[in-house]
């Protein structure tokens, strides 16, 4: 990438529509990957990605660069829309049990186009215990609340909370 994130943020803030193309080229692969992981269907993932771009464009003023990277912010926008999608009634019917089956089977390397700027992240998955990973995947990609995870895995809510916090702490250490 020949441009900095700051420059991109400035151009997006200035409502430069051409900057959105640069933004797309830089982040879309990762965003699409996460969305697809959540919604499971390509055509829906594409719709959610487009809706996300619209939302990012319209609410860009609320992005505060001092509170985190642009990618982290836009990823949250995409994830929220994707989870809204799977939580809508028609989507939930018949899709819920599939979430568990797919979540372990679909772990692969990040697609080209976006590489997290943290060293050693490839090892992230391996640093989590299978229990932590299961809980975090359900929370992050499944759109489950901690209570729902407890119900799903037939575990006490406290255990779910502990595993989630412990897992995120491991990840936090890795990027620090």
């Amino acid at each position: 990438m020949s441009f900095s994130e700051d420059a991109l943020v400035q151009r997006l803030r200035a409502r430069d529509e051409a900057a959105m193309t640069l933004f797309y080229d830089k982040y879309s692969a990762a965003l699409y990957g996460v969305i697809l992981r959540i919604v499971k269907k390509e055509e829906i993932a594409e719709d959610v990605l487009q809706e996300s771009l619209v939302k990012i464009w319209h609410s860009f003023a609320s992005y505060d660069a001092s509170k985190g990277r642009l990618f982290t912010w836009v990823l949250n926008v995409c994830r929220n829309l994707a989870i809204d999608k799977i939580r809508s009634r028609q989507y939930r019917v018949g899709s819920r049990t599939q979430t568990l089956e797919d979540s372990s089977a679909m772990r692969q390397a990040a697609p080209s186009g976006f590489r997290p700027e943290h060293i050693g992240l490839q090892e992230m998955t391996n640093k989590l215990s299978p229990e932590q990973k299961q809980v975090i995947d359900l929370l992050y990609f499944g759109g489950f609340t901690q209570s729902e995870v407890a119900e799903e895995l037939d575990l006490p809510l406290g255990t779910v909370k502990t595993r989630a916090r412990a897992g995120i702490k491991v990840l936090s250490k890795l990027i620090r």
Partner: protein
Amino acid sequence: MDTQDYIESGILEQYALGELTEVERAEVERQAAAHPAIQQELDTVMEALAAYAVQELPASAPPAGMRERVLEGWQAAIREQPAASSAPAQPEQEAVVRPMLTSHRDVADETTRINWMMAASVALLLLSVAGNILFYYQWKNAENDLAIALNGQQQMASTMQAVEKRLGQRSEEVAVLRNDEFRDVALKGTDNAPDASARVLFNPTTHTVYLDVRNLPTPPVGKQYQLWALDNGKPIDAGTLSQTTAQGDNLQLMNSIASAQAFAMTVEQIGGSPVPTLSTMAVMGQVL
């Protein structure tokens, strides 16, 4: 409140995973703004989850043509509702109202056009009616004029006929007057009409007799003049005088007379008499 306790409570992870309500989120953001340690921890949790999410991606390539579709869809969407977050009502109203306005204007245009067409039709009809009335009167006038013209022509023709007839008569008279074969017989007034004067033009060869009145008193009502030829003392009817002849307007061709030595005129009943009433004799003259 102890910052570390707050961080350890797990609420930041819930925030990062989007599990909190709007009110709870606002409270977390308020705490983060107030305590840099909380802000830093929150940022770290968010970054860690983002990094993990990207790490966990499936390797499926994006569908073909997705870039164009998504970017075009995005552009169409932001054109459709620009700045929806800052002023959502205005653009939406605009988007809904604009086609209605144009459709209203279309309807108005259509109505205006129909009104115009109707006005034009009525104007044309009125013009046509006015034109027809005008043409009807002009036609009527022309018919009148034509009748007058025809009448005038007829009058002219009859006048011409009369003139031709009189011309023919005059030519005949002139021919008679210039003909040497005619004998000029002067008829002089008697005691009954001393001022009376006329003459007879008599052609013994053709037995033709013309009468030319110079002056005759107007005959009494119901009477007219009659010419007589006297042959060896015997009166022969030579015909009654027409009114124009009696007034001296023209020469009158009278009855043929084979032989005569004198001519005379008497006043008789209208239509003439077989024998002359000698007491009413007005003029008389000898054939010399």
